[in-house]
Structure formats: C-alpha cells, structure tokens
C-alpha cells in the first residue's frame, strides 16, 4: 500500500516532513542563548546538548556525528550553529554544509556577550526563517520516509496491543518500499534468537548477537540485578515481570519482515526494509540516535504512559492501555485501546495509525509538537576530561 504525502524535497534528495530552522548549540555553555533565540524568532527550534566541551576520542566523535546528523536532517531547512568560540561552531558546521542547506556559525566570545550573540543571531535566523518559508511542500511518497519505532513506559498492553499494532504498520511500510528502524538491543535480551532467525546475512546476525551480549555483559560487569532498572518500576507495576518478557513484547514493534541492515548509533541506513540500530534503552537517547540516522518520524508506543518525543521528527504517541488512553489523552495521538475493549481488531487499529501517520507526514501536528515535548540526548561512551 502506497500513500502520497506533501513533503519538502531537500538538496540531498531526502524528504522533509517539517521545515524547521534550527539554532544548534555545539556545547553546554551556549544552550541558554540557543533557547533565548528560539524564543524570540518564530519558526526556529533550539537544539541543545548538555555536554560537548573537553570530550575526547570516540565519545566526542559520537557527539559530533549525532549533532551533525540532526542538523543535516531533512526536517531541518537551515541551521545556525552556536558555540563558545567560532572555531568549535565551525568544526560542527563543516559536517553539515554538504547537505546543501544554509548553515551559519556564531561564537559567544566573538560576539562579546550572550546578549550581543542573541542580537546578532536574531537577525540572521530571521532571514533564514523567511527564506525557508518560501519553500513549499510537494508530492512525495510516504514510502520514501524512514520511520523509527520506539517504546517507553511499557506494560503488558505494549507487547499485546501497541507494539504489535506498530509492527503491523512497520510491515506495511516495508512492503510499500519504506524503511523502519528498530533500536534498543538491551531490550532484545531473551528475544534475540527470534531477530537472529529473521536476519539472512550472517554478519548482521553476528552483530545483533554481539550488541545484545555487550549490554548483558555490562549488567554483569556492574554486578547489578537488572530488575528495578529494566524492567523499570512502572513496567513491573504494569505486569511485566522480567526483562525477557519485556523484550519479547518490545521486538513486536519492528513487525515481522527480514532484517536487512544493522547500523551503529546515529548512523543512517543504506538499505530499505527493517534496520536495527544499536542504541541504549533510554527513549530520549534512543530517539536521538534514530533521528540523527535520518528517521523523519517516530512511532512511540507506551503502556503506563510516557509523554516525551524526539527532537526535529514528529513523534506519534500510541497506547493500547485503556487507563492510560483516558488519563493521558492530551499526550496520545492514536488511541489503540479499542483493541482491548473488543471494539476493533489490531489490523483496524493499524489502519488508523497508518492514516494518521500519513496526515502527520503532510503537516498535521502531533501532541508532542504542540506541547514542545522533545528532548535531545546524545549517548556518551566516555568521560569529559
């Protein structure tokens, strides 16, 4: 099944479903200025990060790669990069310019003060917003999109309703020629044999096993009983007893199609179909990786309730838990609980999710977008020095 959407065709060929002008802070100390600028100029969003100074090695590379991936993202029309000094802003901007979009840099020390930086930036991003607003949406295929599937605040209904319904959506999107990214290998623990059996390429199969083993070994290395951490207290309250049980429910959101590629955190897929990304299980860190890897939209399945969304990419919140659907209606885009009450089959619920996702791709806003529920969290793998 294919669907036409109205999207923004970007210079790199990818399709944007939003037209943000981003004020990207390359490090912690210019976050406040980025937020101030975004508060002044309509049509801009602040992208901030709690680190970025004195990071080294692979850990720093991961931060630069992830921030650049989000700035290069097709939902972003233009970017202003801020940093304490212009050179560190330029270092990040150099990784963004070949996407073909307008990129500018400003440094706090070059401007003089954060007020002077705000003043300089305000005029600059105002021009960017006006230029971006001249771009119009054009006909694109929904199947051109990369969709990330995420779950958070899981309970028993996640594995029975919202994740399988998301999985039906994933199968349909892949069958139409699209790409789905499933992440969080710590939550494959106990279910990795099922994913491995769906992975024809032996190297990819091995990588999935190694990713899972790495997370399991970390739990052992710290001599921790994972219970209470994963499953989390809210998972346990919602009826999930073990990590294995949570994992078997979690992988259902990836659907049932073969795994065609395995990518590292924040890397973009090169193939179409079902892709696995190596991310931590914390939803904000995971979604940041998915978006940096190019996911234009996220479907976020929750059981007990979780309100947060991804930066830049519209995040569609779904739940199959009737209590959550009622208590959290202001945060839920698609209520899947009619499956539990018996008013709807999972296939019918997946049809509704599909229809809403197509509308959202063409500009309908999500609950996360109107409430500003978004958090950028880049994974760290080493200390700042």
């Amino acid at each position, binding site marked *: 099944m294919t669907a036409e959407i109205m999207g923004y065709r970007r210079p790199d060929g990818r399709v944007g479903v939003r037209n943000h002008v981003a004020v990207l802070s390359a490090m912690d100390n210019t976050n406040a200025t980025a937020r101030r600028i975004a508060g002044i100029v309509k049509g801009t969003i602040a992208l901030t990060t709690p680190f970025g100074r004195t990071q080294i090695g692979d850990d720093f590379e991961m931060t630069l790669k992830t921030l650049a991936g989000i700035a290069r993202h097709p939902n972003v029309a233009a970017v202003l990069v801020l940093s304490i000094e212009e050179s560190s802003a330029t270092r990040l901007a150099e990784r963004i310019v070949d996407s073909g979009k307008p990129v500018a840099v400003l440094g706090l020390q070059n401007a003089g003060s954060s007020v002077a930086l705000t003043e300089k930036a305000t005029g600059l991003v105002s021009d960017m917003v006006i230029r971006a607003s001249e771009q119009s949406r054009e006909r694109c295929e929904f199947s051109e999109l990369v969709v990330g599937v995420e779950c958070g605040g899981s309970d028993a*209904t996640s*594995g029975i309703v919202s994740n399988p319904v998301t999985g039906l959506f994933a199968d349909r999107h892949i069958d139409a020629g699209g790409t789905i990214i499933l992440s969080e290998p710590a939550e494959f623990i106990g279910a990795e044999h099922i994913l491995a059996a769906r992975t024809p390429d032996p190297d990819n199969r091995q990588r999935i096993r190694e990713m899972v083993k790495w997370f399991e070994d970390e739990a052992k290395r710290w001599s921790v*009983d994972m219970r209470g951490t994963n499953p989390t207290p809210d998972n*346990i309250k919602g009826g999930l007893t*073990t990590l294995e049980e949570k994992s078997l429910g979690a992988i*259902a959101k990836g659907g049932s199609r073969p795994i065609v590629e395995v990518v590292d955190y924040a890397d973009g897929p090169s193939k179409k179909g079902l892709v696995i990304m190596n991310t931590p299980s914390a939803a904000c860190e995971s979604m940041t990786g998915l978006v940096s890897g190019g996911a234009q939209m996220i479907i976020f399945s929750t059981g007990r309730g979780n309100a947060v969304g991804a930066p830049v990419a519209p995040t569609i919140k779904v739940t199959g838990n009737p209590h959550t659907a009622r208590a959290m209606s202001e945060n839920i885009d698609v209520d899947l609980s009619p*499956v539990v009450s018996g*008013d709807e089959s999972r296939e019918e619920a997946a049809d509704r999710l599909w229809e809403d996702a197509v509308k959202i791709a063409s500009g309908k806003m999500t609950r996360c977008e109107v409430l500003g529920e978004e958090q950028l969290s880049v994974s760290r793998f080493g200390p700042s020095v």
Partner: protein
Amino acid sequence: MNHTNNESTPGRSPNTGVGPGEGRLARGMSRVLVLDDRDNVATCMAEMKAGDTTEVTAQKERWRISFHDAIPFGHKVSLCDIDAGDGIVKYGEVIGKASRRIKAGEHVHVHNVESIRARGDQ
C-alpha cells in the same frame, strides 16, 4: 474444544496473537488471554478477583482457571502448577523461572518469578 491459532515456527515473531475462546470481548480480546499454545501463564486483560473462574485453551488442552489471588489489569495468572526452577512460558518463550512453587490460579509476578538473563547479581 477451541484452539488458539498459534502454530509456532522458528524465526516467527513472538506470538502476540489472539485466538477464539470463551470470555472473549465483543470482537477482540479475551479477558484472560493465552498468547501462545505453549504458554503456562495467561495475561489478565481485566482486573480479576480471587474466586473468579474462567476457561482458556493452551497446550492443546482446555484449562479451567480458578483465581486464587486478585490479579491487576495486565498481570499474569498460572494455568497449572509450576515447580520451583521451572520455566515461565509466555509468547511461547521462556520469560524467566519460578523462584518457588506456583499453584494454578496464582498471581505470577516478581514475587515468584525471576529473570534468567542479565543477572549481574549472580
């Protein structure tokens, strides 16, 4: 005799399917849901009270569950007696092991089940 439609083959998705059965709500889900025929637990899709009874199909047999405990929405009930150390099976997969003997109709959760995987404490 009813059958749940969950033939299992390697490489399939975990069975989150719903078969026909008694106690079934309108067109959709049973109040007490067996997700795979190999399962020895069922998930309560409604709050259950101690003393409630229902019937489900699993392991090619019909099971009459007499609820020993009150069970919250989304939590699991045992279909049969499960010995300490035996696997708890949901979605047709082992999700943990019984940390003590569990009787049929008991609430199955963290007080009587433990994870096998990622146990840094052992």
